[in-house]
C-alpha cells in the first residue's frame, strides 16, 4: 500500500501566560491510501491539535510546531509549505470536517454558496457550473431536495443536515485525505449512525484516506482500520482494530476499553474507573505520562519514558511492562472475555 502521509516526531506547543503547554510530544505515524486511522483519547490528549497541525490550521503564535517536526504529504513537508501552496493543499489535498456543525458553517451565507466557494477557488468553475456541482454534492451526501436546499441557510437545517453539508464542502475538491474531528459527537445516536454509514460509503466511492479523531470507541470499532491511542500528547499504543480491541497491552487502553458499559454487562455492577486526572501539560513530564494513574506503576515508570516497542508488524506500544524483567501482568478479566478466536 502506498503511504500518503507520514508524520515524523511531531511536537506542538502553545505559548500561554502560564508557560509553554506541550500539547503534542513527539508523535509519528503513517497513513496509507484508502485507509482509516483513528486517533483515540480523552480531551486534552492532543488528538485535535495533531489533526489541526496536519492542516496547518493552528494559529502561530501562540501555537508552535517545533523544529524537526515533519509532516510529509506525498513526500512534501507541510510544515515548510509557503502560504500559496498551503491554500491549494487545504481543500484539494486535505480537508477537514469539524466537530460542531452549528458553529463551523457561516450563518450569513446559504449552504450552496459555502460549497461553491471552494469550487470556484480551487476548481476555477464559474457560478453556474459550481452551483450544479454543489447540488450534485448535496445529493451524494443524501440530502433530499438538493436543488431546493442549496438555497437554505444553516439555521434552516438540522444538526445532521448541517454535518452533511460540512461533508459536502470537505469533499468538493476530491481531497486525498479527509480529517474528521469528532464528526458525530454533537449528534444523536440515530443520526450518528447515518453519518457514519455515509462516511463509510464515501470512503469506498472515492478511495479517500480518513483520519478520524474521536473519543467514542463504539464509532472506532465500526469504522477504523488502524487505531492510535493517545495520552498526554503521546501515542501510547497503536495497532489494527483487532490488536487494540482484542489484544491490547497498555494499561491505559485497558482502562479506556473497560470504562464503557457494554450492553451485555450486568447493570449496577461497578464499572471499571480510572482514578485521577491526566497530567498538566505545562509541567515537564518525567517518566511515563500515564504513571501517576497506572495501577501497575513501577519505579522505572516514574524515572524514564518507555521506548516504543513493536509486538507484531502492526501492533506496538510504549510501556515498561513489556520489558523482559518486568512482572507479568495479564489483561483485565473483563476484557479477556471479549477475545473471539
Amino acid at each position: 500500500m502506498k503511504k500518503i502521509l507520514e508524520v515524523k516526531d511531531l511536537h506542538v506547543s502553545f505559548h500561554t501566560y502560564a508557560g509553554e503547554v506541550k500539547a503534542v510530544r513527539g508523535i509519528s505515524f503513517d497513513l496509507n491510501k484508502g485507509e482509516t486511522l483513528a486517533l483515540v483519547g480523552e480531551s486534552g490528549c492532543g488528538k485535535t491539535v495533531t489533526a489541526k497541525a496536519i492542516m496547518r490550521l493552528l494559529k502561530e503564535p501562540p501555537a508552535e510546531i517545533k523544529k524537526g517536526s515533519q509532516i510529509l504529504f506525498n513526500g512534501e513537508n507541510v510544515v515548510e509549505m509557503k502560504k500559496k501552496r498551503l491554500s491549494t493543499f487545504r481543500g484539494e489535498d486535505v480537508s477537514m470536517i469539524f466537530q460542531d456543525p452549528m458553529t463551523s458553517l457561516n450563518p450569513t451565507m446559504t449552504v450552496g454558496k459555502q460549497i461553491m466557494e471552494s469550487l470556484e477557488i480551487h476548481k476555477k468553475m464559474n457560478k453556474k457550473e459550481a452551483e450544479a456541482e454543489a447540488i450534485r454534492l448535496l445529493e451524494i451526501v443524501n440530502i433530499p431536495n438538493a436543488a431546493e436546499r442549496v438555497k437554505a441557510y444553516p439555521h434552516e437545517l438540522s444538526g445532521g443536515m448541517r454535518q452533511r453539508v460540512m461533508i459536502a464542502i470537505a469533499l468538493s475538491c476530491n481531497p486525498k485525505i479527509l480529517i474528521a474531528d469528532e464528526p458525530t459527537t454533537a449528534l444523536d445516536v440515530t443520526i450518528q449512525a447515518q453519518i457514519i454509514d455515509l462516511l463509510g460509503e464515501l470512503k469506498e466511492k472515492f478511495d479517500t484516506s480518513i483520519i478520524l479523531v474521536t473519543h467514542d470507541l463504539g464509532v472506532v470499532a465500526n469504522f477504523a482500520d488502524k487505531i492510535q491511542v493517545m495520552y498526554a500528547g503521546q501515542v501510547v499504543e497503536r495497532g489494527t482494530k483487532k490488536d487494540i480491541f482484542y489484544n491490547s497491552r497498555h494499561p491505559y487502553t485497558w482502562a479506556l476499553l473497560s470504562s464503557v458499559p457494554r450492553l451485555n454487562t450486568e447493570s449496577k455492577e461497578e464499572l471499571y474507573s480510572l482514578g485521577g486526572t491526566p497530567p498538566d501539560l505545562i509541567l515537564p513530564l518525567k517518566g511515563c505520562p500515564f504513571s501517576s494513574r497506572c495501577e501497575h506503576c513501577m519505579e522505572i515508570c516514574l524515572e524514564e519514558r518507555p521506548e516504543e516497542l513493536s509486538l507484531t508488524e502492526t501492533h506496538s506500544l510504549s510501556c515498561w511492562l513489556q520489558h523482559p524483567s518486568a512482572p507479568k501482568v495479564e489483561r483485565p478479566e473483563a476484557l479477556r472475555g471479549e477475545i473471539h478466536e
Partner: protein
Amino acid sequence: MSKENLIEVVNLKKYFPVGKNATLKAVDDVTFNIKKGETLGLVGESGCGKTTCGRTVLGIYKATDGHVYFDDKDVHSMNREEKLKFKKRAQIIFQDPYASLDPRMTIGDIIGEGMDVHLKLSQKERQEKINDLLGKVGLNSEHSARFPHELSGGQRQRIGIARALAVEPEFIVCDEPISALDVSIQAQIVNLLIKLQRELGLTYLFISHDLSMVKHISDRVGVMYLGSIVELASNKALYEKPLHPYTQALISAIPIPDPEVEDTRERIKLNGEVPSPINPPKGCKFRKRCIHAKEICSESAPELKEIGKDHFVACHLF
C-alpha cells in the same frame, strides 16, 4: 395509589408558547411512576422533551396540565410551605458542571447554600457536614475553600452531586449528569451515583441520551419520542426485547465497542430526522420514520398499553 410509589406522574403536559398561535408540546401526556429506591431511566434524542419532563416533575416548570404526585401530594398545587418541604426532599443534578456552579462562590458555600435554607445548622456543624459530603463524593475538605474554576469537569460534577445531597433528599433528578465528561470520568461518576443510591436509599430519575449508560444504571427505562413515552419497561426487557420500532432502531444504532459485533450485526436504519415538535405529524408521531407504518397510524395516536408484565408500548402493532 400504591404505597411503594414515591413519584406518580399522571397525564403530565408542558406546552411552551412559541410565536403567534403556535405551541411547542415539549411534554405531551406523559404518565409513569417511580418506586422508592428505584432508578427510572429516561432516554431519547435531543428535543424529545426528556429534560423538560424532569424539570416539570420537580416543579421548576409549571405544568400545563396533569399531575405530579410526590408521596401523595400534588407538586403543582402545593402551597409555599409544602413546596419548601418538597424541595428539601427532591433535588436535581444538572448536565453542565461548568454552567451550573456559581463561579463567584466557594465550593463550601455552593454546597452549604441549601443547608442554610433547609437545615439551619450551626457554623461548626455546617462546616463538618460540608467536609463530610466532600468526602462522600470523593473529594476532600481542602476543596471547600476553593472556587469552581480551580476544579476539573469531573470534580465539578462531584460538587453538583454533593450540593444535591446536602439537604438529605430522597429523590434526585439526574439530568444528563455525565454527558459533558470524558469516558473514564463518566465511569467514576456513574459508580459514585450507584454507590450513593445503595448507601442512602435514593430514588433517581436518570435522564440521558446515552443508552448504554442508562441501561447500566436503571431498573426501568422509558423511551421518549417527541414529548411522549413510546415504551416503558424493565431495563432487561427493553434492551433484550424492544417492541416499539423506535426503541428497536435506537438500540441498534448504539455503536458497540467491539469490532466483530459491529461487523456482523444488522442495523435498523431510520430515515430522516426527528420532526419539529411544534407541528408534529398527526396520529402516531413516529409514523413518518417507521417502517411498519399503516393507515391507522396516521389516523389516531396509539396509547401506552401494557403488553407484558410491566412492559408498556404505545404502538398500533400491538
